[in-house]
């Protein structure tokens, strides 16, 4: 920028860029706002409009949980606590408790990545209002559940096949997503 030419160029640039900028903002005036007015009723529930990888409140499918404690160990703020009881006679191991303190959870998703079967995962649920902090602790064990043992050569029990498949799909999508840590290796 020097001399009279630069001076004129500055003026021309100012006018033309403002002209272009005003055109862009005016074109936004006739677009549909992105905002979803949340408490309002919309045709679909808000939960269904969220993307698959949305990090909502954690949920656990205990039927396919192997009890490996990977999630408990990887959690940076220890909001997951798992207790496993062993029956002395039958050597059968069952869950005593599996609690997630939503109050502490920071939705980092490390547990969902660490899970080998995809049993712990983020749901689309986000409405976590509660009258007390204790109400925010999710207890997943309501009845004694045996630990899941993956079978060699794939699952054969027809009631379990579907659950294993959902977990695996979630793992493929969330834990090793496109562009994630494991992408591009295979």
């Amino acid at each position: 920028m020097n001399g009279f030419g630069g001076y004129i160029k500055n003026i021309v640039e100012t006018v033309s860029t403002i002209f272009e900028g005003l055109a862009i903002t005016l074109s936004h005036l006739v677009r549909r706002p992105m905002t979803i007015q949340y408490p309002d009723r919309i045709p679909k529930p808000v939960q269904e409009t969220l993307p698959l990888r949305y990090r909502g409140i954690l949920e656990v499918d205990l039927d396919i949980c192997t009890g490996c404690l990977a999630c408990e160990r990887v959690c940076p703020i220890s909001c997951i606590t798992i207790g496993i009881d062993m029956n002395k006679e039958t050597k059968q191991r069952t869950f005593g408790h599996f609690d997630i303190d939503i109050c502490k959870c920071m939705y980092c998703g490390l547990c969902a990545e660490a899970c080998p079967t995809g049993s712990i995962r983020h749901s689309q649920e986000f409405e976590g209002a509660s009258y007390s902090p204790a109400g925010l602790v999710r207890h997943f064990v309501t009845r004694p559940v045996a630990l899941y043992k993956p079978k060699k050569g794939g699952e054969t029990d027809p009631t379990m096949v579907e659950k294993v498949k959902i977990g695996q799909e979630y793992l493929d999508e969330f834990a090793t997503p496109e562009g994630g840590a494991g992408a591009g290796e295979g």
Partner: protein
Amino acid sequence: MQAFVDSLIQQGYFTGMPTQVVYAIAMIAAAFAVLSFFVAPLAGVTSWLERRVWARMQSRVGPNRVGPQGILQWLADGIKNLLKEDLIPAAADQLLFPLAPYIVFIGFLCTFVVIPFGSNLIVADLDIGILYLLAVTSIVVVGILMAGWSSNNKWSLLGGMRSAAQIVSYEIPAGLAVLSIIFLAGTMSTQGIIKNQGWAPWDWYLFNNPFTFIAFFLYFTAALAEGNRTPFDIPEAESELVAGYVTEYSGMRFLFFFFAEWGNLYVIGAVATILFLGGWQVPAVGDGLIEGVLQFVVFFLKAYLWVFVAMWVRATLPRVRVDQLMALCWKYMVPLSFLCVIGTAAWMVVFPHGNRWASVGMFVLGVVILLLFFGRVRYQIRHSKPELYLRPYI
């Protein structure tokens, strides 16, 4: 206004009262009427509309809960501010701090004395109308500087100083742009300037010659800067100064500053309309009443268009830096406005009775620029394939 009061006195409505007392009562009544029936609702609705327009330009919704489409939002905000505690910091200047908002407000409200609503509807048609307008808007600087100083707070002081520097600097291009119109009109009375123009766009001073065309944009930019509007809102830049000179204010005193700011938008638009856009001029139709209403509507729409443009500019441009602000004023706008003044004077020497063809040519040029602009808007809409939503409500 004075003629109206005089006619009432002659008809014997106020027998037994000194004329001066009648005038005083009439002045107070006029101020009350203008403030409560025009300025207050206008500033309020403008604050709501600005938030809606701004939101839509940013793909948001904006306030739409209080009343139909949120149109009563301004009342809710006003009531909330009335109920808030009026805090005066212990370290603040106990006299100047409470006084500052009123000075700002007076400076803004006094402009409505010379802003016409129609050919017969004006508080006072002063002979020095435009000069008076420039003078009273400068009172705002005093109020802002008072607010900045008396708050005893470094952000407030910096905001006040910036505002003073900015307003004083931008008075010059604004004044010079106004001067070129005073040359053409040969009068400073607002009604006189409007009467010299016609209802047709090519009779407006905007299209009178190329220099007034530039002067209009110079005036509008300088007026935005004087009104502390984005992109020139460095006195209250949140990222640097918290809220500038209003940092320490709360409740109703805080509201007075923003009342003045939003009301001032209409003043900017109205002055631009008076000087450049033919004011209340309408084609000759009907009798007195219909014409009067039509004049009011035309003037209001023209003025409000520029309020909308100010909102639109606010949604478009980022805030300028202090040195950029001063460079823009002193290096670009002041020389250009001098050019406009000299150019207009030379034009008047060359064409003593104006040049009809030049006016029509400028009008055509204006239309071409507008068409080009809408072409760009259309391109932006097509280019990004957005979901169109043309309804104003949501």
